[in-house]
């Protein structure tokens, strides 16, 4: 009997099958967004009868209305100017602040520890506008924190935080944590959010 060779399997259509799978995965892939602005909500507390007095000049009021217009300290403002205005306010250093580099205007905030940024919005304000404003305010804080971190520790605050979360960081994490706390204490994120107002 003649020995029969098994015929070779035609692999020509393998590419087609692989392409089919490839296209399926290409279509179903969604690159997940996993970054954003971190924030901490305040606990619900009973409002004390007599809240501790805060001087008017230590509060920086940012209002966003339903038409995405900004009212900063009773003046209309564009979004692009908000960051600088917030930096000027926080860094003013009216009294008891030896690291502030602002104008030391007596009509603006005393020091970053007392300064509070108050963000208020309508119920009809769009979320996007709110995030834009929040972003600018966080940017102002980050700018000042970076400046101080560069001055004291020779690297930016954002980098310090990134190193802290990096498991491959080769340095003392305890020291880093201390440093981060120091910077945070210099410019605490005093960002107060009022409940949105009902439209009258």
């Amino acid at each position: 009997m003649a020995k029969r060779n098994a015929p070779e399997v035609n692999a020509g259509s393998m590419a087609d099958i692989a392409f089919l799978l490839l296209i399926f995965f290409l279509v179903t892939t969604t690159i997940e967004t996993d970054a954003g602005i971190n924030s901490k909500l305040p606990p619900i507390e009973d409002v004390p009868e007599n809240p501790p007095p805060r001087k008017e000049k230590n509060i920086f009021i940012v209002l966003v209305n339903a038409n995405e217009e900004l009212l900063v300290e009773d003046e209309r403002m564009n979004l692009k100017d908000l960051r600088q205005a917030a930096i000027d306010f926080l860094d003013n250093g009216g009294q008891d602040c030896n690291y502030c580099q602002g104008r030391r205007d007596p009509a603006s905030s005393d020091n970053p520890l007392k300064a509070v940024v108050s963000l208020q919005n309508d119920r009809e304000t769009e979320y996007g506008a709110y995030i834009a404003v929040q972003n600018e305010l966080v940017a102002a804080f980050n700018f000042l924190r970076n400046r101080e971190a560069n001055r004291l520790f020779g690297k930016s605050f954002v980098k310090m935080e990134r190193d802290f979360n990096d498991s491959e960081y080769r340095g003392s994490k305890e020291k880093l944590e201390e440093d981060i706390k120091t910077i945070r204490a210099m410019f605490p994120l005093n960002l107060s959010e009022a409940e949105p107002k009902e439209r009258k």
Partner: protein
Amino acid sequence: MSKFRKKKSGDLPAISTASLPDIVFMLLFFFMVATTMRDTTLMVENNLPFADQVEKLEKKDLVMYVYAGKPSERYQRQFGKEARVQLNDKFADVSDIKEFIISERESKREELQNLLTTSLKVDTKTNMGLVADIKYELRKAEAYRVNYTTKNGKASQNMN
């Protein structure tokens, strides 16, 4: 004479496509590995706003997702066009958030329970009223760490 004339064919030999499957498989494996399957089906429009002061969410298993936005087109007939909250795979009421957070928290190990972060994936066009209600519910559930999940970009793009 003709015995010595070599057969000279002018046309080029066909290009071998034998390695094509290998190349395609390589791409395929790349996409298979890089793909993260969404565990929830989005039922709301979810066009996230832009921001540039972002921090990355590190531990994915310690994140709870709350979606909000207008119902997608195919759900609009049933649920209307008003922005709604989505938890896991279904539409929910704002008052369900507290229960959701508590059940999520219970499913985690005890030492991790206070490291949980809530990721708010809210559509750009949503009114702040709804967001404020969500935040109030989160405060009631004592889930204070939130992350406004955004796309990376200039924040001024949100304003138009």
